[in-house]
């Protein structure tokens, strides 16, 4: 549903100097919101279960003097939308998502604002309860973008402490690990927890005056009468499972930006709608995006087995030759190692269970000897882009742009996307600044992307992944050729195969896979792992996983594909239970959701739409 808003008559002058806009909120003595219908305190109390609740970020205390001067608030806070009771808040730039791309954009905007002495109000909304709470990644970090953004980071105390010390590459068979020459070169890179780095970036952004609001999920894009994006609406909170308002109902607010940047990460829910609406892939003849699902654990291991900086990648076991993917094992600090399995989502066998494949990996002798005697600290999962260069959509739309993995800048052979996401955020910030103060067009973002090292890097890397369409060995052969000889300097660009959701074969054509039972020491069942992700949602809310056609799971997914969602979901959200007639019925345990987006990607009929739940819900990653 779009909100058609009357275009604000103000010219851009309204937002120029800091002297003109103070906090124009009518600070009423009561806590009633200043709209036509009061919502919070007047309804009678009702007995209901304690609900979840958005919490402020740890870093919220660092409120710089800049923030109160530079924010623009909707004049009189008047609600402009057609729906009664919604408040509207305006900023110069609105960023959706406090990840590497979003925060880099915020930091860059504030840097430019300081440099040119022009005030700019920047707001970042984040659906996680804390900045960094929904961030999960390998991660061997290439600091090239950070060196550009915050060159003094090396003199500060940051979460970037462990330099990569070795690059191992193993081909695993059931029992052996065969060392191969490593296609990776991580000299100069660091083994980090991206969740920790993002928290640090959030602190930097706030120091510079960015307003960051975690615990608020952007549920809708707001458009004006000319179909230009003017901002987002945060999700109403306090709605019961049956759709009625609970006693603590809180309507969402409209947050407007003169420029809106979407930085929701891979398969961002609003970004996907924007890409479809403005046909951004068609615009540049981009291919569809392809994805992989990464499942990760952070272990605390024996001191004697810990080798900080060691970087290991594997191919082969437990995945079969037709399924692209591999594992990673990175030694961080504090006796922690990051271990994960990445499985491309264009796998054919609907019986494949990426989570169980990950459990199969761990007892492998080469992995087991590292993990033995250790404990799992955290667990999580997230999809990532594998489409690379061929799948980059045109990232500019009327009213803003898409940055980071929502557009898709991950370098697949390097399996790194943080540095390119950050750079894309910085470039978009520079373009947005120009839009607001120099009258240039947001297309400058696209032009600057194409002129940057991001483009060069992704172009050179473009043929690695698609080569695996022809099989594991051809893929490896092409990879070797590309890595040692060609480096992307060929006149052709290989195309991706089918879209991930179309690649699944019918169940009757495939062999079911038997997975071993968890041993509780190295391998675990899903509920045990899920508990370690600290994930939670308020139970009494409508499911955020929407079925476009509620009959398809029982009509198609279960009989024809053997219920793949009950296998690929790393959080056991989807379960088939027997109804009163003994027939299978889909049960959606939305409360378990890890926000990985695998279901949105892999559902054969694209029937599952991932939408945001109430803000503050989801995993609480801190070491991932």
């Amino acid at each position, binding site marked *: 549903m779009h909100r058609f808003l009357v275009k604000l008559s103000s010219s851009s002058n309204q937002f120029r100097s800091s002297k003109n806009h103070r906090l124009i909120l009518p600070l009423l003595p009561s806590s009633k919101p200043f709209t036509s219908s009061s919502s*919070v*305190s007047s309804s009678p109390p009702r007995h209901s279960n304690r609900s979840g609740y958005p919490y*402020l970020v740890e870093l919220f205390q660092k409120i710089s003097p800049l923030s109160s001067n530079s924010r623009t608030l909707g004049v009189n806070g008047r609600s402009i939308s057609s729906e009664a009771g919604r408040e509207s808040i305006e900023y110069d730039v609105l960023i959706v998502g406090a990840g590497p791309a979003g925060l880099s954009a915020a930091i860059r905007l504030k840097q430019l604002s300081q440099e040119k002495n022009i005030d700019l109000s920047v707001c970042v909304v984040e659906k996680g309860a804390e900045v960094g709470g929904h961030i999960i990644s390998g991660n061997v970090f290439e600091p090239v973008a950070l060196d550009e953004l915050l060159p003094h980071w090396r003199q500060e105390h940051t979460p970037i402490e462990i330099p990569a010390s070795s690059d191992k590459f193993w081909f695993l068979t059931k029992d052996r690990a065969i060392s191969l020459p490593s296609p990776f070169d991580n000299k100069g890179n660091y083994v980090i927890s991206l969740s920790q780095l993002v928290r640090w970036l959030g602190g930097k952004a706030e120091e510079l005056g960015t307003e960051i609001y975690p615990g608020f999920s952007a549920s809708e894009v707001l458009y004006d009468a000319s179909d230009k994006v003017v901002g987002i609406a945060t999700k109403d909170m306090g709605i019961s499972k049956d759709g009625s308002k609970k006693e603590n109902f809180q309507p969402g607010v409209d947050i407007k930006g003169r420029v809106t940047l979407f930085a929701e990460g891979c398969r961002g829910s609003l970004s996907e709608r924007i890409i479809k609406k403005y046909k951004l892939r068609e615009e540049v003849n981009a291919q569809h995006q392809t994805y992989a699902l990464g499942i990760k654990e952070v272990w605390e291991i024996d001191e004697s087995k810990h080798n900080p900086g060691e970087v290991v990648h594997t191919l082969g076991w437990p995945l079969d030759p037709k399924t692209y993917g591999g594992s990673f094992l990175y030694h961080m600090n504090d006796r922690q190692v990051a271990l994960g399995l990445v499985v491309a989502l264009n796998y054919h066998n609907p019986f494949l269970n990426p989570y169980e494949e990950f459990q199969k990996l761990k007892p492998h002798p080469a992995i087991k000897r590292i993990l033995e005697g250790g404990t799992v600290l955290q667990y999580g999962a997230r999809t990532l882009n594998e489409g690379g260069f061929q799948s980059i959509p045109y990232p500019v739309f009327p009213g803003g742009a898409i940055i980071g993995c929502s557009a898709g800048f991950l370098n697949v052979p390097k399996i790194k996307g943080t540095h390119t996401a950050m750079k894309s955020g910085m470039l978009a910030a520079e373009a947005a600044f120009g839009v607001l103060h120099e009258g240039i067009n947001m297309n400058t973002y696209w032009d600057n992307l194409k002129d940057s090292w991001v483009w060069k890097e992704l172009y050179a890397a473009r043929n690695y992944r698609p080569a695996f369409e022809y099989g594991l060995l051809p893929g490896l052969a092409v990879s070797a050729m590309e890595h040692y000889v060609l480096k992307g300097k060929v006149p052709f660009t290989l195309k991706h195969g089918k879209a991930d959701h179309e690649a699944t074969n019918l169940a009757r054509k495939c062999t079911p896979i038997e997975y071993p039972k968890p041993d509780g020491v190295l391998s675990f069942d899903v509920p045990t792992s899920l508990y370690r992700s*600290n994930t939670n949602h308020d139970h009494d809310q409508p499911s955020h996983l929407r079925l476009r056609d509620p009959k398809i799971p029982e009509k198609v997914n279960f009989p024809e594909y053997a219920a793949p969602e009950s296998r690929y979901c790393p959080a056991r959200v989807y379960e088939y239970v027997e109804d009163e007639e003994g027939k299978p019925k889909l049960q959606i345990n939305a409360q378990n959701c890890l926000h990985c987006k695998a279901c949105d990607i892999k559902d054969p009929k694209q029937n599952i739409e991932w939408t945001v739940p109430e803000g503050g819900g989801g995993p609480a990653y801190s070491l991932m």
Partner: protein
Amino acid sequence: MKILVAVKRVVDYAVKIRVKPDKTGVDTQNVKMSMNPFCEIALEEALRIKEAGFAKEVVAVSIGPSQCVDTLRTGLAMGADRGIHVETNTSFLPLTIAKILKSLAEVENPGLIFLGKQAIDDDCNQTGQMVAALLGWPQATFASKVVLDKDKHIATVDREVDGGLETLCVDLPAVITTDLRLNQPRYASLPNIMKAKSKPIKKMTVQDLKVDVKSDIEILEVTEPPKRKSGVMVSSVDELIEKLRNEAHVV
């Protein structure tokens, strides 16, 4: 009337915790912290009383490290008028907290002190009771319903006790600790979070309040509970009795 609400910053209820390898406590590094759920309920009740016109001001107080300011900001965003942060890096036990709150009450002169019945990190369930005793005020703990009579200066409180519900009448000023079913705390809306940034938080120290923080309790060791052993199937009643007598020593 002024209402003083004590709020505690604790490990978030949905987070998996573990004991530090040196057994001195729970590992709270890099762990998500939030306002204690019972403290949220206490604050919510105080806000409702204020909105009903029975109180003029709700003051939130938190005792702990510098990050407690975040917890107080959450409280301010919910609707508290101002905050007091008693800054300390020592983790105090309930008696010391009660002494600090007593000192604060003597400064602020509230008509009501609301606390959560217990904190979810230590489950002590002592602070509210101790504050009341130190101040010589009446107490109504485990409140599931609070009704104020402004003219008579009394509060009628339904308490959740083991046998069911007990209704007490307490003279004000009084200490009330809140239980789960009292209310459902409100969400802090975005505009309120923004407003809260400009609400004042006063910083104080235990020295300012002239409180003796020496504790006569020392935590020796924190360990994880023993792992649950799997059940054993017995083949006959005799075997059951034999096991109950000789292995479990309960018969």
